[in-house]
């Protein structure tokens, strides 16, 4: 590693994971002009989209670069002090709602540290972070897509980026899928997959570095083509979610009023609401689809909703498990059904959609992590590494991205100073600290939750049962009151009689199994 490289570290992707790695490297004493951050978006942020909430105060650690990010960053929208979880069926809605004055700094405790979650708009936030990186002296290059890495001792012209992503002529279907590169000489393929990474290739030119950080976000092509995560291919839609959302403009005053938000002042950001919803809106759609397309008969879309208030707008969308999508239902029509549910329609009434978009989200859990986080001279962080946590009440990816970036920055600086950036050295530092961090501990503790979350019951009869029961319990019709438990039993009986699917799904044994897995949340 004595030879001079163009940079110490090249980071691919200027999202939270990439930016965090870069800032941490600065903190560890790496010079800004030895760090290059490239991003395929121009401007930076223009490729990014979130359906989530930024949890935790990870950004505080970069105060020297970001200052008062909470107030100054345009994409950090509102401090969430109002959290809702809800069950929606086509007519009924039941919400569990928490409102915490301390979370927005309006309670007795006026400590900023109490604020721990924010609604975010990433196109704006990432652009701001990129500015801050440049101010700190880091090289940032927008509009640069990297699809080839520079491998020591390998002429990058001996294969093209398309060879990595194009199906081979003799490719089989399903698991037998093959790529063009698979038909290249074995020695070359092995170099691509296991050689020492020493930089990036851009427009035929090589830029070298001691370490390359892959921070491409979800749907990372490099993690696939360079075999960090060889499972990310056409067979791996399991554990991947698609978020579809609209950003709907309502105006600041209307949002403050409609959602009872603290409007913010010189020291405190405006407060906001975050809501995650279990949906059973798709029964009729699914039945029609099954009839029309028997090929996916019985496949029911496992789909949740989310709704967040931003400063001037709201983010309204759904998130669907790709493996659960039946033929006959477009993902955007799942969104429309959510948007038209009366409780949601009321919240966006009078608003105007200003942006539509969609993005993948890895919800891997421990059972489906990339098979390696490091290679000689490279490592992978954030969503690209599948570091997203989901337990049904929270989806956390952005804080994990920031945190993994910090761990990567520390590890890389240490490895560079020791003169050893081999896969093993990076593993002993980065992967080790990652596995000891809260990211992994959370993933481990909530691994059983995936079983609960994937249970079709949560997307079919559970929200309906909850909604119908609440409807009757809360209603006063001038008759003798019936205890809630009895109502619940009555509703269950009716629902079971109503549909064949419910007859099986709502049996006592199924319900017990659901409750037992749900306990692990």
């Amino acid at each position: 590693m004595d030879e001079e490289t163009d940079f110490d570290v090249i980071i691919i992707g200027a999202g939270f994971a990439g930016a965090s790695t870069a800032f941490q490297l600065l903190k560890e004493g790496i010079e800004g002009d030895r760090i290059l951050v490239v991003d395929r978006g121009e401007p930076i942020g223009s490729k990014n989209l979130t359906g989530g909430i930024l949890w935790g105060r990870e950004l505080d650690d970069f105060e020297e670069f970001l200052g008062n990010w909470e107030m100054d960053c345009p994409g950090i929208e509102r401090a969430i002090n109002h959290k809702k979880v809800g069950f929606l069926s086509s007519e009924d809605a039941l919400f569990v709602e928490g409102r915490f004055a301390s979370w927005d700094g309006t309670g007795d405790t006026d400590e900023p540290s109490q604020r721990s979650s924010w609604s975010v708009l990433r196109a704006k936030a990432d652009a701001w972070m990129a500015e801050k990186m440049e101010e700190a002296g880091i090289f940032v290059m927008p509009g640069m897509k990297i699809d080839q890495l520079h491998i020591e001792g390998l002429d990058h012209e001996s294969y093209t980026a398309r060879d990595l992503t194009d199906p081979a002529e003799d490719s089989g279907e399903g698991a037998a899928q093959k790529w063009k590169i698979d038909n290249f000489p074995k020695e070359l393929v092995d170099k691509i997959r296991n050689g020492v990474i020493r930089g990036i290739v851009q427009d035929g030119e090589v830029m070298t570095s001691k370490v390359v950080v892959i921070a491409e976000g979800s749907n990372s092509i490099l993690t696939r083509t360079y075999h960090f995560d060889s499972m990310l291919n056409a067979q791996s839609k399991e554990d991947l979610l698609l978020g579809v959302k609209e950003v709907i403009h309502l105006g600041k005053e209307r949002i403050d009023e409609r959602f009872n938000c603290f409007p913010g002042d010189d020291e405190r950001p405006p407060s906001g609401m975050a809501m995650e919803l279990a949906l059973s809106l798709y029964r009729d759609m699914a039945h029609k689809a099954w009839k029309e397309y028997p090929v996916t008969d019985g496949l029911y879309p496992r789909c949740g909703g989310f709704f967040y208030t931003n400063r001037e707008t709201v983010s309204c969308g759904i998130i669907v498990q790709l493996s659960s999508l039946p033929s006959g239902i477009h993902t955007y029509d799942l969104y429309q059904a959510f948007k038209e549910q009366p409780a949601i329609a009321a919240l966006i009434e009078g608003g105007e959609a200003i942006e539509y978009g969609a993005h993948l989200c890895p919800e891997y859990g421990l059972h489906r992590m990339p098979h390696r986080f490091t290679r000689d001279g490279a490592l992978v962080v954030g969503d690209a590494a599948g570091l997203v946590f989901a337990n049904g009440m929270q989806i956390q990816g952005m804080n994990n991205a920031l945190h993994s970036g910090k761990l990567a920055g520390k590890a890389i600086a240490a490895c560079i100073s020791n003169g050893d950036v081999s896969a093993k050295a990076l593993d002993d530092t980065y992967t080790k600290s990652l596995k000891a961090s809260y990211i992994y501990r959370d993933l481990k503790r909530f691994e059983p939750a995936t079983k609960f979350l994937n249970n079709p019951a949560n997307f079919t009869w559970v929200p309906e049962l909850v909604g119908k029961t609440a409807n009757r319990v809360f209603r006063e019709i001038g008759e003798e009151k019936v205890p809630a438990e009895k109502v619940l039993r009555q509703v269950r009986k009716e629902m079971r009689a109503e549909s064949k699917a419910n007859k099986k799904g709502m049996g006592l044994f199924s319900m017990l199994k659901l409750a037992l897995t749900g306990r692990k949340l």
Partner: protein
Amino acid sequence: MTETTKLGLFTYDVKNGLGLIGYNVDEHEHAHIIVDTKKCGDCDSMMCVWGCPAQCYMFRDVGLEEMKFQYEDCVECGTCFLMCTDGALSWNHPRGGFGITYSQG
């Protein structure tokens, strides 16, 4: 009226939605996704059609005999690549600076 509209109980006006997004569309010769539509012929499930949030894929869902693909409206999510069971897709991101430009995100 397309077949999907008849089937869907809730129909999102996706073209209107896509109209809200900024794009810097690259030339055809640089299309970032290439679909070998010959392989789509007997595909029953047409999962790309249903998964794609931008209606880039149109097939029997709208009464077409052959798969029709356009990359211009692509939001670069990667769903089609994961959904295709026939190995018909060559999937890449657009060249740097091209493709979708979210302004909110």
